[in-house]
């Protein structure tokens, strides 16, 4: 359900995150914050809209992250009249610049799970590494073969 109270809280968090992105990319990539303001506002609005869509459609199991991508995808397709302007503005927001604070939050959030991890056996550690490798290279090998057959690589 869409609730004004939740939107307010989400918006507060999004504003802080966007400010961190502006500061981070200023330091990391030399993009001056005022240059990126229109772009970051667009990103903020789309982010908030995707949260609202997710709350409004609880039966559709599509995460807000995917909604955000989908909206931006549609706005930036080559035949869309919005594409040039939208890409020029959001282009002022660096891709890598948006990742640092996510991973900082992710790292801190893991803190709650460290004690559970200690209870796991060392075997889980080894098995998990092979699960990661198997998933990754299984997909990569098939993709390699199909892309080759299609003549795309």
């Amino acid at each position, binding site marked *: 359900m869409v609730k004004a109270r939740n939107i307010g809280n989400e918006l507060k968090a999004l504003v802080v995150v966007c400010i961190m992105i502006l500061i981070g990319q200023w330091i990391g990539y030399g993009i001056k914050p005022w240059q990126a303001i229109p772009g970051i506002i667009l990103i903020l609005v789309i982010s908030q809209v995707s949260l609202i869509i997710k709350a409004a459609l609880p039966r559709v199991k599509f995460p807000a992250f995917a909604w955000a991508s989908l909206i931006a995808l549609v706005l930036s397709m080559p035949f869309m009249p919005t594409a040039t302007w939208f890409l020029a503005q959001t282009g002022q927001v660096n891709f890598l*610049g948006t990742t640092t604070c996510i991973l900082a939050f992710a790292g801190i959030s893991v803190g709650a799970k460290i004690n559970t991890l200690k209870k796991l056996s060392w075997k889980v550690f080894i098995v998990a590494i092979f699960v990661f490798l198997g998933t990754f290279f299984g997909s*990569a090998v098939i993709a390699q073969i199909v892309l080759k057959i299609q003549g795309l690589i």
Partner: protein
Amino acid sequence: MSDSQAKTTAELIETKGKWGSFIKLYLVVLVIVIVTEIIGIIKIKVGPGSIVLLPMLYAVVIGILITPDVLGKVIRPLRKLISMPEVEIAGSLVMISLLPLGVKYGTLVGPNIVKIVTAGPAFLLQELGNLFTIFLALPIALLLGMQREAVGATVSICREPTLGVIGERYGISSAEGTGVLGTYLMGTIFGTIFFGLLGSVAVFTGLHPYALAMASGIGSASMMTASSSALAETVPAMKDTILAYAATSNMLTGVTGMYSVIFLGLPLVNWLYKVFTRKKQGAE
């Protein structure tokens, strides 16, 4: 499923009465962002290529280190800054802070949409590649002496949809549930670090960066980002296509992942489990 889900995201990001925790958390994360961006991208030359270390990698490591059960245990004042309430809030802020990145991914996929549709067959078929993990990891889990835990631990990369499927089929406190939780937890804690390194090292295998980009979409936005950004920085000439392919593949895994576990992964892992354990009994 996990403890943090006892409270909903809406409750967790409610600022009322928790301003102190929010301000502390935001300041700490801002400092992490500033420090990691000052360090910047580090490229280590290795033979013909290089290993790329991105600020996000340092951010996740610093984040883990400053939690109450790690450095907080040794450095007491740290606990005043980051304790359990802040850790809880951080969990829900991951979802929020992912959204701007989601928008950026959309802007990478959109302009390349024709290119991506052309590569459709590769996208769809490589989803099946996720099943390869069963053939690789299940024998290893059994060799290490795991039993039914192995079925849960190796059925897939064990992100949330798999956790749900196994939880429903066997119960999360069953042996299979213990297994799936183990891999899930490993992924949550070490996944971004592991894939952040793998993304750039994988180029050495000789597989094409586009194929590796598709493989990066394993159904976790943060792991996909870690892997594909490292890959993109390693092969900068192909950057845009790499990121667009990875994002598309990840979206696809998000849609197909759960069905793949139910209809393909679980039957396959159970069949293979029977084959291996029967052989073992026969040998004894």
